[in-house]
């Protein structure tokens, strides 16, 4: 088990959190091209090393948070409330 710090609940077991994707990604506007939409839908940064990820404290406060996590060793570097 790993401990994830939740900005509102404090240190909690990682089992309470649900991964929600890449936090750097933003949805293109309605007038985007097919290629932009396909890129948004399917392409992944899939970073090796520090990645900025969205997680939901699903079995806790329910809030979405941003976790900076190293995908090569699972270390949690920082957590913040979701900024957008």
């Amino acid at each position, binding site marked *: *088990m790993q401990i994830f710090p939740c900005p509102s609940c404090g240190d909690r077991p990682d089992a309470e959190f649900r*991964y929600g994707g890449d936090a750097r990604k933003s949805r293109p506007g309605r007038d985007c091209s*097919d290629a932009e939409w*396909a890129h948004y839908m*399917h392409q992944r940064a*899939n970073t*090796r090393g520090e990645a900025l*990820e969205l997680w939901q404290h699903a079995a806790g406060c329910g809030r979405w948070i941003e976790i900076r996590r190293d995908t090569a060793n*699972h270390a949690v570097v920082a957590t913040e409330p979701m900024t957008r």
Partner: protein
Amino acid sequence: MSALPRKSRYSAWSLLREGLRGQGGWTPAWRDHDPEPAYDVVVIGGGGHGLATAYYLARTHGIRRVAVLEKGWIGGGNTGRNTTIIRSNYFNPQSAALYDLSVRLYEGLSRELNYNIMFSQRGIMEVAHTDAELESMARAANAMRISGIDIELVSRQATLALAPLLDASPHCRWPVRGALVQRRGGTARHDAVAWGYARAADSLGVHIIQGCEVQGFEIEAGRVVGVRTNRGNIRAERIGMAVAGNSSVMAEMAGFTLPLQSYTLQAMVSEPLKPCLDTVVMSTSNGVYVSQSDKGEMVIGGNLDRSPSYAQRGSFRVTQSVLATLVEMFPAFATLKLMRQWGGTVDTSPDNSPLIGPSPLPGLYLNCGWGTGGFKAIPAGGTVFAQLLATGRHHELSAAFDLSRFATGELIDESHAGVQH
């Protein structure tokens, strides 16, 4: 059939001869080469797919100036970490055609490579625990039969006859309703697949270069002309990458992204015991699966770990839930001791189908996205990728798996199937 010169062929006679002569006459199965400055084709990644690709490039297409670059040792990635299930019961016709070619090639592979890959067609079965599962299996079975796959839906009684240790008691956690059975499915020895292809490729002149890590690409006028490695730069006409969980890292070096996410998939083995399970059993709803190796160990696996990872290490929570579920399905296994547990980094794609084809960088070609189930596909993956690298054009079976499907929306969705290996 074999590419090997007569004197180094393995046979009953060579065993006897070496037995009598004190085993002194064996030669290395493949040689270690230093990289040359240029090749016709460079294949990055010495897993099963990379090695098979090199073998078919030399054997089928007569291209002998081929190098396989492996950063560690051959077969040390997912090929040497997988649970070796081979089957072709896939839902979509494009997948059925590709994976069934692979099963057929596996059927003749020990002979073709003159290397015993220990392909054991002990059959695989996916157990249904509810009536709803049984109904969706019937639909899947019909689709597979239309594609010409030998698949049978069998009764509870027949399922229990195939795997008598499954819990059949009235109030068990995972009741047995029936199963989807592919009798041509089975397991093979993972290392032998890598080593057999390496040996056969080596004998055709392919250079297998271990401890050689690709760290960047040489690009001239928008086209890749070589790779940068820890052992110098190597030029090539065409470059193929078959680096599984590291595909996105390599794509970043080449300046593009891929529709892939890397996760840990773990597996484990028990202490060895006498033969008690002569088929592969997979559970559709909980993802847990088990087979018995020739050494007698129970080889056990389950679903992916939950968060993206390159750590090649799984969390204890998944280990625990896989084992708890296994013991509910097979109460007799509760007394077994666990020997080893490990993880591999798998490259999952949005539709659980591989990516095969030209990359966005001209001259660089992709064979990746096999995720949790590409061991079974090694002979077919090597065949179609070799054709692509030799000619620059798709094999008829790989065209559907081109990267362009994510823009057109023609996905080959295999994610509904539940079983992922």
